[in-house]
């Protein structure tokens, strides 16, 4: 489905929500310290460029990510969330990402079920060596969210525009 009507970006979930002309999505990236955060640092050290919409939050492990971080993000500041951790088998804490993976799947599906595009929350495995991959992932997520338009997810009072 095309989110743009008359050249104006509208929310894919609630077409009556129209983006302001200079709208840029805000994306929250929650990255595990050992793989993905290190990978994002490598992206920086390698000077690989990616869209500036992402705001990165560091957590020790993807298993630290409680699903309601995602809900809270979407309810307050974010139009989309990216959570990234170590590849399966590479978790610094042995098994954290396996638990996280289960929660992510259910959260993603549940959000989609109650009417939010599945691309609003996305997940990736980025290792400490995958600087280029991180840039690619961010570019993709940003592009996806831009297509989806602004999010109206029962924003709290202060965030209703």
């Amino acid at each position: 489905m095309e989110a743009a009507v008359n050249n104006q970006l509208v929310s894919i979930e609630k077409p009556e929500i129209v983006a302001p002309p200079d709208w840029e999505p805000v994306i929250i990236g929650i990255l595990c310290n050992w793989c993905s955060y290190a990978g994002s640092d490598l992206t920086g050290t390698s000077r690989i460029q990616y869209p500036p919409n992402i705001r990165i939050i560091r957590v020790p492990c993807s298993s630290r990510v409680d699903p309601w971080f995602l809900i809270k993000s979407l309810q307050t500041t974010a139009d989309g969330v990216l959570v990234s951790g170590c590849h399966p088998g590479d978790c610094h804490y042995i098994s954290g990402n396996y638990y996280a993976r289960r929660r992510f799947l259910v959260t993603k599906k549940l959000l989609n079920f109650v009417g939010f595009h599945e691309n609003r929350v996305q997940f990736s495995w980025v290792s400490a060596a995958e600087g280029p991959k991180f840039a690619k992932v961010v570019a993709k997520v940003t592009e996806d969210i831009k297509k989806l338009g602004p999010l109206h997810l029962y924003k709290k009072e202060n965030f209703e525009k």
Partner: protein
Amino acid sequence: MSVELFVTDKAGLTKFYEAIISKNETYAPVEKFGKYDFKRVSSFDACNPDAPIAQTMSAKPLFFPRSAKIMKYTADHSGTSVKETDEDSLAGKRVILGMKHCDARALQVLDKVYNWDYIDTDYQRRRENTVIISARCDKAETHCFCTSLDYDVEHSDAMDVAIVNGTDGKVFIEARTEKGKVFLKEMNIEQRISNNEFQVTDETAPAAVKQQYEAFAASFRLKMDYTEVNARLSKIFDSPEFENVSANCISCNTCAFVCPTCHCFKISDEKVKDTGVRYKSYDSCNNGYFTLMAGGHNPRPVKYRRWRQRALHKFVYYKERFGENLCVGCGKCTNSCPVNISIFEVVKQVSETVSV
């Protein structure tokens, strides 16, 4: 109190309702998921003023919202400033259709507390600007016991305009207050009469209405003398019976949230970044942390004490302070209770353990 009484039929009533909705900001029971709640309506088809009590939420949130913004504030590097809240969406002139007698009566009970030491101006404004048109009950439902409580259903002026179903498809429309009379005038009652939609009633009408009320009163399954109950309950604070009657309770809050007279609330702030909003929201005495104090002291840590508070507040404390029971006998709490606890039965059971 002067009364104006008109008579019409089903079709005339529908036309009347349609006219009201088209001319006024109107609230009426709207069905959603099998339950009726009072919502702003723009056409008669969308609502059902005759929705059964058991499946209808109270209209209380139109006066005392489930969550009301009472303040907005900003706190940044330049200091803290309090801002006005948004315009009160419930403060305009409006009409409520299909409120039941009990629900309307509850507002009169609430008026007492709202006009007591602190005058809640928001509430007052909402009350003043609202015309209440009540739909008549024909027959008591399973958990109704309004007639047992201390108010005169037949002559109640809790509603501005009362609709009474008579026999032979007749429908009586009665303005019970000055506001109601003015409203009927505004609604071109004269023209309706000349159109033959409404008829002026003859002298038999009041009798017909009275007959209806008598039949209604006779249909009640639950009847109890509450003056006696008030007296008994006032002596019963230490009764062990509260523990028995509350055993089934799962402390779920539902009864308080659906009750048309409960008015306990809590204050909460939601602040993000520099700005915050202060809310006043429903609270419930069933809740395990109702009136939990900042130091950690909980005056009612166990369920039976909370239940005792609920019963005694409704039938003793409020009565003592304002001369009325904090209950209108609508049975909404009993209808909604997941474990079918009936406040009528509970009060009966407890009060029976002492003599007057």
